[in-house]
């Protein structure tokens, strides 16, 4: 385990007690899950629908005044953010499967996003959430593009990785869609010799093109053509809404995993891991940010990334409340709990990207 702080891992007896406390928080919360949660998610979906429809109409009204166009862009971006974060991400984690509603179900849900949801369920729900921050197993750590710890050796391209990061952020949707395809090295580079995919590489490639193509068709062909005289403004509006959504989701996710204090782990760390050790790793591999209610909703409650990683299938709406209890438990066992204001956390992300743009001292000395 490589860590920026000096906290040593508590012994296994302590972690056992620690796990019991966290399990208790989970079951207390699950006992409360019911009608209120169902109403909540249905309301969020309603707001999403109204914003999406309203946004698309407002874009067309841009011919009356550009103010309408701006409103349209913002509404559409808002709808896409809600769809991806508070609805899609959480539903696809199975948080609302207990509702037995086929349209709000982890297995069936498809989001307004270039990434094929099945692909995302494989590498995000499975790989990232099981092997959080294990270098060599969790490809989400740096996305194969950025060097964010000393676990990987420095290469000259890391010098300008802040630009790579900004690019990735703007095109985040495509990065997410391309992530699994790239991991298998389907188009260029060395192919992985062994693939753990439950589908063939051809199916993976087809799913990638089919979903990304569908999104492209919708936003850049169908709706612009439908509003033909407004073709260009609608096209540009859709493009801008997608970019705004990308910047936001990327920022939220970077603040949840790549702040300065976040720890990384080696494959040995997760061998024969107990529940307590697993919880411990999830906490050290994530970070929270604080804010008002709307900030939590817009981030899909990934502002509570720690709670999300501990309890990925508990309805996210409860994370803020659970966060207070988790933080208290962490304090009790002297386990670091990484949180701060949104701005502060973002600054440490930038710091981390910059810091590892350069070789570490040991490496530098040997160069």
């Amino acid at each position, binding site marked *: 385990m490589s860590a920026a702080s000096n906290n040593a891992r508590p012994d296994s007896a302590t972690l056992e007690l620690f796990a019991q406390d966290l399990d208790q928080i989970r*079951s207390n919360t*699950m006992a409360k*899950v*019911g*009608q*209120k*949660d*169902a*109403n909540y998610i*249905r309301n969020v*979906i*309603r707001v999403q*629908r*109204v914003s999406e429809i309203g946004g698309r109409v407002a874009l067309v009204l841009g011919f009356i005044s550009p103010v309408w166009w701006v409103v349209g862009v913002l509404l559409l971006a808002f709808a896409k953010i809600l769809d991806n974060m508070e609805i899609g991400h959480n539903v*696809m*984690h*199975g948080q609302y*499967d*207990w*509702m*037995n*509603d*086929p*349209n709000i*179900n*982890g*297995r*069936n849900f*498809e*989001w*307004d996003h270039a990434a094929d949801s099945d692909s995302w*369920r*494989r590498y995000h*729900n*499975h790989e990232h*959430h*099981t092997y959080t921050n294990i270098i060599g197993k969790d490809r989400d750590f740096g996305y194969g593009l950025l060097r964010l710890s000393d676990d990987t050796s420095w290469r000259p391209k890391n010098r300008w990785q802040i630009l790579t990061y900004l690019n990735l952020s703007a095109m985040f949707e495509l990065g997410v869609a391309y992530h699994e395809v790239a991991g298998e090295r389907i188009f260029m580079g060395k192919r992985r010799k062994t693939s753990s995919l*439950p589908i063939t590489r051809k199916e993976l490639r087809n799913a990638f093109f089919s979903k990304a193509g*569908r999104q492209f*068709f*919708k936003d850049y062909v*169908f709706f612009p053509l439908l509003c033909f005289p407004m073709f260009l403004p609608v096209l540009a509006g859709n493009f801008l809404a997608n970019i705004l959504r990308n910047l936001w989701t990327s920022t939220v996710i970077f603040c949840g995993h790549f702040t300065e204090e976040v720890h990384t782990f080696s494959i040995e760390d997760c061998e024969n891991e107990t529940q307590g050790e697993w919880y411990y790793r999830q906490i050290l591999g994530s970070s929270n940010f604080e804010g008002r209610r709307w900030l939590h909703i817009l981030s899909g409650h990934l502002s509570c990334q720690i709670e999300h990683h501990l309890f*990925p*299938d508990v309805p996210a709406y409860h994370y803020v409340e659970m966060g207070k209890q988790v933080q208290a438990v962490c304090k009790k066992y002297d386990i670091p709990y990484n949180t701060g204001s949104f701005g502060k956390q973002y600054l440490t992300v930038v710091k981390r990207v910059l810091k590892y743009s350069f070789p570490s001292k040991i490496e530098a000395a040997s160069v």
Partner: protein
Amino acid sequence: MSINTNTLDIRHTIWSWIARNLTNNVSFKAYFEPLIQLFFPQWRADRFRSSVIDVRRESDDMYSLVIKPNKQWKGFRAGQYIELTVEKEGAWVSRFFSISSSPRYFNDSGLIEISIRIQENGQITPWLPQALKAGGVVNLSQAEGEFCLADSTTISGVTASTPTTKPILMIAGGSGITPFRSMLQQISLNGLAVSKPVSLMYYARSPEHFLFKEALNTYQQQVPNLTVNFIDTNELGFFSDAHLLKYCDDFAIRDIYICGPSPMIMHARKVLQNQNVNQEQIHYEFFGPEPVSLEGSGQASSVLFQQSGKQVTTNKDEPKTLLTLAEDAQLKPLSGCRIGVCHQCICQKKSGVVYNSKTKTYSDTGQEEIQLCVSVPVADVVLAL
């Protein structure tokens, strides 16, 4: 007809393709569902929102729901069942019930009835009457099932009273009477439509457990060829060769319909087979969910993988998760982390009870989504796999 169906199919395919492309939902209805629910609570794109007119007590442990189905609902044949869905604490719960009233009655009044036995420790059947008392809303599926009189092609729209051609023997156990009540009401309302004899052997564990007793007696008076025998098992014992000879000695030339609890159906089939009754003459339908017995979780249970048609029996000394059981049966369900985190192995359970080793909770008996990798079967389970 086939051309029509084809064009409809093509149109449907095109529409759902467009809906998927534009909304990422399976249909436009599904996309707008949450908005429509604002005005019609519990409205659903793939179900028929129907109102409950009355909840009628039938006996100590049985009640009937009188339902006015939504106008788009297509009707049914006597003996068919529906899937009834209601929202309980934010979750949709579904159960299958036979319709206990007749298509003719539905034609005349626009109403159907379903009769429900209260399951002890059940989560739904005891709760429903309270929840629906003041005119509640339920969702219906279209009617399904082939447990109908062979030539009773009387779909609700068509009131043609085709006379039955072969004599009929009906064997009912407990709440298994409901589809027969529907058939007999149909025959009675259609007037003297039965040219051949119909005989009903109705088993219950005590006199107060006979349902629709008055109605059945009335039908008997109205329909000359109908015989109804109420058989109290406490006094007269279970279905047997002796009963057959006593109540319906010409059973060998009849079409035989059996409905009731699973053990009773198995038993009746065995008795009839020993009497050399032709298999094709015997029609049967298992009725209702099995009662929940969590204490019995130490017993071996069977798991049926519905889509692949495979069935396995668990070993009580060595509990295995459904994922392992499926893999042992050479099935390859999608799976991921195997510790209940990634939700890739989610599968629909059609019926039965499972224990979730992660949340340490037992499931309900009905249809719901479960995680294969952390679920252990505790009662006979049917999976959509």
